[in-house]
């Protein structure tokens, strides 16, 4: 055993406050440029959401019409199971997850682009 005392260790939780971030003055000051950027972000995100739902509407939303227009489809069997059970019971779920995954990825990228733009704007000052 050594006579040395163990070193003091500071026991802390994860930092509650992040280090100070650059203030994004353009948006706060509601300059024309700042609000233009916010509006562009909102428009981009809305358009992304609408496109995602458009895929949903075309993929799933047209199925009732399809079965209404072509009733014989309900009798088609695939691997011993009728087509509607495949199209409504199995296929939608992986497609929904795929569409959601794509949306999350794109939405985060839009936000990153927006943050990048603001940072550049502040650097120019």
């Amino acid at each position: 055993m050594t006579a040395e005392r163990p070193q003091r260790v500071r026991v802390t939780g994860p930092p509650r406050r992040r280090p100070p971030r650059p203030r994004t003055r353009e948006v706060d000051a509601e300059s024309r440029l700042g609000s233009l950027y916010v509006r562009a972000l909102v428009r981009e995100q809305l358009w992304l959401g609408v496109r995602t739902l458009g895929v949903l509407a075309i993929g799933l939303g047209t199925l009732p019409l399809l079965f209404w227009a072509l009733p014989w489809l309900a009798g088609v069997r695939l691997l011993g199971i009728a087509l509607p059970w495949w199209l409504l019971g199995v296929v939608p779920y992986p497609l929904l997850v795929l569409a959601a995954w794509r949306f999350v990825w794109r939405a985060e990228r839009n936000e990153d682009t927006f943050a990048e733009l603001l940072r550049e704007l502040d650097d120019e000052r």
Partner: protein
Amino acid sequence: MTAAVWPGAVGVALVVVTTLGIGSLGLRLSRTTSDFMVASRSVPAFTNAAAISGEYLSAASFLGAAGLLLTFGADMLWYPVGWTAGYLVMLALVAAPLRRSGAYTLPDFAEARLDSAQVRTICSVLVVAIGWLYLLPLFQGAGVTLGAALGLPTWVGPAGVASIVLVNVTGGGMRSITLVQAFQYWFKLTALLVPAMVMLAVWLDDGRPDAAALGRTDFPTDVLAWSDPLAAGGSQGLYLTYSLIAATFLGTMGLPHVVVRFYTNPDGRTARRSTLLVLTLLGLFYLIPPVYGALGRVYAPELAAAGESDLLVLLLPRLVVPGLGGDVLTGLVVAGAFAAFLSTSSGLAIAVAGVLGQDVTGRTWAGRRLGGVAAFRLGSVIAVVVPAAVALGEPSAGVATTVGLAFAMAASTFAPLLLLGIWWRPLTPAGAAAGLVTGGVGSGLAALVTLYLDGTAGWVGVLTARPALWSIPLATAVMVVVSLLTRQPEAPHVRRFMVRLHTPEALDLDRG
């Protein structure tokens, strides 16, 4: 039922003990009002996703979907598809901004966006109405389930579920419930999946019989109609199907217990990611009910004829697997069903109690004012006791049907409010109030007509049974038109609020 009740009794006892056990674990961690209401917003995405799914998968999913599939066939697949797709709609247009709005409840969101006490009050009334409309079939279903599985009188179900929910909610609030819900997702998945696999194995071992091979030709609908994905066929069938799609796709975002869940995410990005995980978890779960529907058609067609299709999931394992194996599987599904009743009704009770605690019991009454936690506890007593009492007096209704009405009401009121509030700056308090009242009264009247005057034939019956397809556009149109008529110059707080809703939290912005 003359079969042994012990497996179900053991299963239910285990669920109750586990629920209260995990709940009391949370009780030691819950200290502040924020803990009670949103678990202090410190739940990781995966736990939160499991909790959202666990809370969302109600008895309508666990029992109702399989039963509907047995009786009506493929058109009922729209229920599980819609219940899942609702989360994609929510993800695409609502999830992150809603979380970033920083509000606890839907009335909070309305007040923050519109700065109006009247709109807040209307929202509070609607949250309570939708919550009770959803709690009612759950309590009723609990009575029927426990009656069939354990041979208990019907009043035990509502009373038992209501008391356990009350103990859990008043005890630990959102923190303990989050852990309980996350656990219950995995439990419900197991409880539905394992018996389904065993029964499929038995069916393959039997040489894959169909109903005719077993001499069960007493099924009410023929094979072709059973695979028809349009209810009733023709133009009414088309309307019913699209109205169901509208209600489930848009209703999810307006359900009070789903919305409250989103505030427990740490930030907007986590909200999105947990929604993606929720979609995955729900998709996994909803692959199973069709298996019960199809096997039920082979082994238990008499349930559909007897109008007991809600019991299919509970009774099927014993009909397919003889002896002890069937008993054990029955215990599993009964426990899963009981967990489904508990988890959704806990979530709804919290949402309704949160609103009552802020807007009713938290107010000053006769010169006295309750503290935050005490008001929340009193609120949860009211939230649970009222629908339980109604369920005791009125013990029966199809679980999935009444739940469908709750979805329609949410879709006709909160869905337009959230969508326009988040994406459309000109929305005014007057417009929001007019739209909420229109949608609420329209879908509410349709629900009352369907629940209390059943048997209305023709288009009137069709339009009231599934109101969403007319009530959502109506409410949205009223909201837009009245907003345009009462249009004012854009207020600074609306600009600030839009910045808050749509910009990532990592940016240091003035969010009002």
